[in-house]
Each structure stands twice: as C-alpha cells, then as structure tokens.
C-alpha cells in the first residue's frame, strides 16, 4: 500500500490548484451574476491552459494529450472541481470515447479537441429516457450510405459552446433478459449539420452559467462516416469509455467539498457568539469533525477507484461507490456549511449558498444515486444468481 503522491502528482495538484485560485476564482462572482461566460473569456481560459501544456490531460500522448494516468487525472479533476463548472469546462478534457474513432475521425474530431480548436459535448438523455437510457426514442434510419436521424435530446451540458455532439441514438431493438431494449449507436454530429438544432435548455438551480441544452433532430442526414464504432455498438462503447467520467463527478465533489470546508473551519474559528468562537461549541465542532471525515472518506474511495483503473482491475463497483458517496457527502457538507454560517450562508455575498445549490445536481447526473446503488448491488448479487 502506498498512500503518498509522487512528486509529479503533487506538482500537478499544486499547479492546478494555483491556476484555479488565481485565474478562475476571481471570475466566479460575475458568472453567478450574469449566468454567462462570454465565449472570448472561455477562449482565454483555453489558451492559458494550453500554454501550460495542461489541455486535454486525459488523452494519450500519442494523440497529443497530456497522457495522465487515471489517478493523476482524477487528482486534477478534484482540484478543478473547486471552481465554477461554467469556467472549468474550458479546461478542455475531451471525452475519451473519441479515441475509439477511426483514423479519419481522430483527425477531424479528436485532434482538434486536443489542440483546443473544437469542443465536444455528449448526448444520451431524452425527456422519456433518463436513467433508462435504452428506452431512448431518437432514431437513426439507414438510407443508402447515409443515416437519417429524428428525435429530441434534453439536458445536454455545454452543447451551446460545443462544435460537435457525441450523440447516442437507437438503430434497432434487441431482446434482453429484461425485455426488449434499444440497440444504441453513436454518431458524431457537427453543430451546423442541416436538420440539427441546438436550443437553450432549462434554467437550472445548479451550476449557473454551465448551460444544458435541447437538441432537435429533424430528418437530420449524416453520412456513415459520422458513425463512431459499429452500428449497434453504442451501449458497449459507452460502458467501455464513459464509466470513468462518473469518477470525475466523485473527484469534483471532493474538491468542492474541501474548498467549502476550509471556509467553514475559518468561520468557526472567527465568528464569535456568546463571547467565544462558535467552533468552541460542540454543536459546531462536531459538525466539522463529521464533514472532514466524509471528505477524506470520499477522497480515498475516489482515488482508490482511479488506482484500480490504472491497475486494469475491475472498477465498476468502486467507481459507483465513489460517485454515490462523494455526491451525497457533498450534499451533507454544503448543507452543514450553511448551518455553520447561519443566515450569511444563504446570502450570495458568500459562495456557500452556491456550493449548496451546485451540490444538488451531483446526485442526479451521470447516474442518479439510486442507479449507483443498483450498480453496486448488482455487482454483489449477480454472481450469486440473485
């Protein structure tokens, strides 16, 4: 067992942390106020990160990325998680799934993403297909050498700033032990494809400035060269490449919880009532004890799951545990933070209310808590035939 970070990992952590503190924190209030990040500002962040050689750190070096292993990348995500997502989205981390493309697709999509020339988004969810992704209705019909896509996606994060969308659609149906399910296929859809429209989504209480969008496919015709992987391989592709993105949710939750916690400790030590720092009251100090215990536990769960990925061990259950625990921990920590700050905790003069709002979505996206529990339980019981 080795619990320490290598010098390189520590330097990655220190560099990301100081970048986030110096370059992103100062922009956050304006993002909260306006609900927007001007594209030029996003470009500026991309350029700064690019100059640091930290753009696309998750993509292998052979494609020009940073080539970080899962553990080091998870540490990076943890530190990035401290900052507003509307800003940190411009620290490009293209979806790993783009590595599954053929040579032409890598040339047209992966490499421009790595160079910061293109931004990707990823679309699965639909109004009638959330947790039950294989119930999706958006359908691609083969027509000669093309596909024609019809349907609607919603909740698609940062599609407004994306140049293309990695889109999962149904191309048929198959019998499974749990009844008929859609066969999924993955397409790369350029934003200006005729018949394809990216519209503003809903106003979310979490992550102001980080927009979700609605995608409309209306007889959208794409050539077969836009198909990622094979027809019908979408579900396997997603399982192979996207499990790790759930781990980034765990990591960002842990980083944000620690940022919030540090403010709480400071407040508890300095805010005085009844002639003493409120941290002297056990009612407050025990909260701090529980909060840091949860944060450390989430941190270790997350890093251990990342370590398993690097060792090429099964990590599905461990990733689900980390995502489940870290997102629920963040909810508790940010809620208690408001309690510790009292009324000021609810005011937008301080970032505490924002951490609390932002925390709420973490238990829902990338697989709701119930789905993570389901994954964990199935991992335990399936081998026993139950």
């Amino acid at each position, binding site marked *: 067992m080795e619990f320490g970070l290598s010098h390189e990992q520590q330097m990655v952590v*220190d560099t990301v942390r100081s970048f986030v503190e110096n370059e992103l924190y100062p922009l956050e209030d304006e993002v909260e106020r306006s609900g927007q990040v001007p594209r030029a500002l996003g470009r500026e962040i991309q350029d700064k990160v690019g100059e640091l050689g930290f753009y696309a750190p998750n993509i292998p070096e052979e494609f020009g990325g940073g080539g970080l292993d899962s553990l080091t990348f998870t540490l990076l995500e943890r530190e990035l998680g401290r900052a507003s997502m509307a800003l940190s989205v411009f620290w490009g981390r293209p979806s790993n799934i783009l590595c599954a493309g053929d040579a032409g697709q890598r040339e047209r999509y992966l490499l421009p993403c790595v160079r910061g020339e293109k931004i990707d988004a990823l679309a699965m969810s639909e109004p009638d297909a959330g947790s039950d992704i294989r119930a999706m209705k958006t359908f691609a019909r083969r027509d000669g050498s093309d596909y024609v896509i019809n349907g609607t996606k919603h909740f698609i994060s940062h599609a407004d700033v994306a140049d293309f969308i990695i889109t999962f659609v149904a191309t048929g149906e198959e019998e499974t032990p749990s009844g008929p399910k859609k066969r999924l296929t993955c397409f790369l859809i350029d934003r200006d494809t005729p018949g394809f429209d990216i519209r503003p989504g809903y106003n979310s209480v979490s992550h102001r400035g980080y927009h979700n969008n609605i995608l409309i496919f209306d007889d959208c015709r794409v050539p077969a060269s836009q198909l990622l992987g094979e027809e019908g391989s979408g579900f396997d592709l997603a399982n192979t490449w996207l499990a790790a993105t759930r781990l980034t949710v765990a990591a960002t939750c842990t980083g944000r919880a620690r940022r919030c916690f540090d403010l709480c400790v400071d407040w508890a030590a300095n805010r005085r009532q009844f002639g003493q720092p409120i941290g002297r009251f056990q009612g407050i100090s025990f909260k701090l004890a529980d909060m840091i215990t949860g944060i450390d536990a989430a941190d270790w769960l997350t890093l251990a799951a990342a370590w398993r990925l690097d060792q090429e061990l099964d990590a599905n259950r461990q990733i689900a545990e980390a995502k489940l625990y870290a997102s629920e921990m963040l909810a508790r920590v940010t809620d208690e933070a408001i309690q510790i700050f009292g009324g000021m905790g609810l005011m937008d003069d301080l970032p505490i209310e924002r951490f609390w709002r932002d925390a709420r979505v973490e238990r829902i996206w990338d697989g709701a808590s119930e789905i993570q529990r389901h994954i964990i339980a199935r991992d335990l019981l399936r081998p026993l035939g139950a």
Partner: protein
Amino acid sequence: MKILIPIKRVIDFNVRIRVKKDGSGVETANVKMSMNPFCEIAVEEAVRIKEAGKAEEIIAVAIGGRQCQDILRTALAMGADRAILIETDVEVQPLAIAKLLKATIEKESPGLAILGKQAIDGDNNQTGQMLSALLGWSQAAFASNIEFTDTGLEVTREVDGGLETIAIKLPAVVTTDLRLNEPRYVKLPNIMKARKKPLDVMTPQELGVDVAPSIDVLDIAEPPARAAGVKVADVNELVDKLRNEAKVI
C-alpha cells in the same frame, strides 16, 4: 555560464504558523511545505536568463532532509537542468549553509548564484551576503531588476530610501526581492520531463563542512497580539499623534 540557485523548503506561505507549546519551535507536523517564495523568484530569474541565451545550465541546490527532493523536482519542472540535495537532518544555520554553498560552488564553478533575499521561516536575510563574503564575489542583495552588461550585471536594488542601481562584476551573488519577477506555473510536459533530470545527493561530510549549529535557540514565542487601532478625526490629529504619542516623525 552556469547559474546556481540554492532553494529552501519552508512552511507554505498560506499556512498560519503556530508556535509549539514548549516553545522549542513552530508546529510542522501535518503542515504543507513548499519552496520559499523568494527562492521561486530566484528559479524563475535563472530560467529567464537561460531562455535569453545568457546561461547554459541551471543547478538547483537544497540543503535538508530527503523531503527536500520535492522542491528540487519543482525547480527542475520550472526549468532547472539538474539538482543537488545536500542531505542532512541537522537544522542548518545560515553560516553553515553559506559554507556548504561555497563548497558546492567550488566544485561546480558557476558564474552567478541567485538566492532568495531571505526564507520566510527564519527571515534571517543572511545567507546570500555571507556566501558572497566567503567567496569574495560581488554582491547585489534585494534585486528588483537584473540586466546583463558587457562587464557584468546592472542590478536594481530595493533599499529603504527607494531604488538603487549598481554595476557589479561576475562572478556574483544576487538575492531576489519580491518584485523581480512573477514565477510561472509549471507546465505539464515539464513536470514529466523533470522526472528524468538528474538529482544528485551528497552529504555535508563529503563537502568537508561542519554544520553543527553555532546558535542555540532558547525560546520561540508568539508575537504579542495586535492591539486595537484608533480612529482619528483628521490629518492634524494623525500628525499630532504620530509626532507626540508614537514619536515616529
């Protein structure tokens, strides 16, 4: 020309320092340690000089326990070419540090040594000056600007009265002030490259230097808590108080 940059590992500048209960020192258990900020400025300056083509090699030197490798790796990631750790568990004081550096300089023959003006732990502000005296090299402490000239360096120094610009010959010892430059973020590819750069370890004995402390620390105490301030009604009252109560003007 080679540049030597001695760097020190200190408690991170963000950490609130706490004095140990028994007065024997400050609390370092579970405390984040980093490169002394003035040393970071020294590394940055050396890298800029090398980038400008005025130096060929940068050697970072740290003195202390094995843990000092972390700041040496940071210096390598910032752009130093190789590193030397002079490993010792003794708390080495400025004169002994200066002697160790002198011995290292005699082996490496750099044309310039750039040090932080002081380390933020002891705030001694002595090592650079002692080193230049031991070597008989020119000295420019508290640099806020360094220019190369035909005959050596032109260094702007931050002194009490303002700025002073002096011309010195090489080889020289320069110590950095806060405004000399703004250290860069380390770049990811350089972090990875730093792993492959050489880091040699030696001991004070190998350099023939006795590092036994010559100063005994008797007690370390918190500074007195700051008294509350007073509000003055106008400038006249302020001047009056400064002159007659504080007696500073």
